[in-house]
């Protein structure tokens, strides 16, 4: 009866995520219809590959964030 009396709020706050991971992903940049040379295409490919690799590293950071926070949270018993 007395043992059930605790009213102390025991709650772990939700972990904060890095702010740069909360920005929605941008679309790939479409090629400029007025510039149709091979270099223009290469520049567009270069830009879009850059976007991909940035998203890849952000995605991998999310995985690391989740796994690490899960480990920390599981440690509270």
């Amino acid at each position: 009866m007395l043992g059930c009396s605790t009213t102390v709020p025991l709650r772990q706050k939700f972990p904060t995520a890095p702010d740069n991971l909360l920005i929605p992903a941008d679309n790939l940049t479409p090629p400029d219809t007025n510039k149709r040379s091979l270099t223009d295409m290469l520049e567009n490919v270069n830009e879009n590959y850059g976007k991909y690799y940035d998203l890849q590293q952000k995605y991998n950071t999310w995985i690391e964030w989740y796994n690490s926070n899960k480990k920390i949270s599981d440690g509270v018993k």
Partner: protein
Amino acid sequence: MWFLNFIPTELLQLAIHGVVALGVILSLAGAFASRIAFIGQYGIAAKVLGSVLLLLGVFFEGGYGVEMSYRLRTQQLQAEIATAEKKSDDLQKALSVKSKQKTIIIKEKVAENAKDIEANRIVINNGCTISDDAWMFYNRAVAPKVSDSTR
């Protein structure tokens, strides 16, 4: 019994020990009171009251033990949660710095590559033209594949 949380531990312990002690004293006094003149008539009442207080005191002693074990467990959990929150906060800061650095490196490499492409524009193009069909397919490849409802 939620109000027990607001009573200081020392005061609670003292009160419970006091009830037990009072119960013992009254029970003993009641047992001997019948042999003493003038107060002999109160012997039974003292015994009954002493027994009730003793029983209540023992009950509360047990409850106090449970309450203390819960308070200790609560303190341990609060400490663990505080440590976990600190770890999580440190992790968030470290990951944020690492990810931002990677973004900077990627942007630098993209810019460097774009500069090199521009510098070699004449050599690369070298009379090469891209057909309308090739542009159309390339455009299609770049276009979003699913509608974006998350934004």
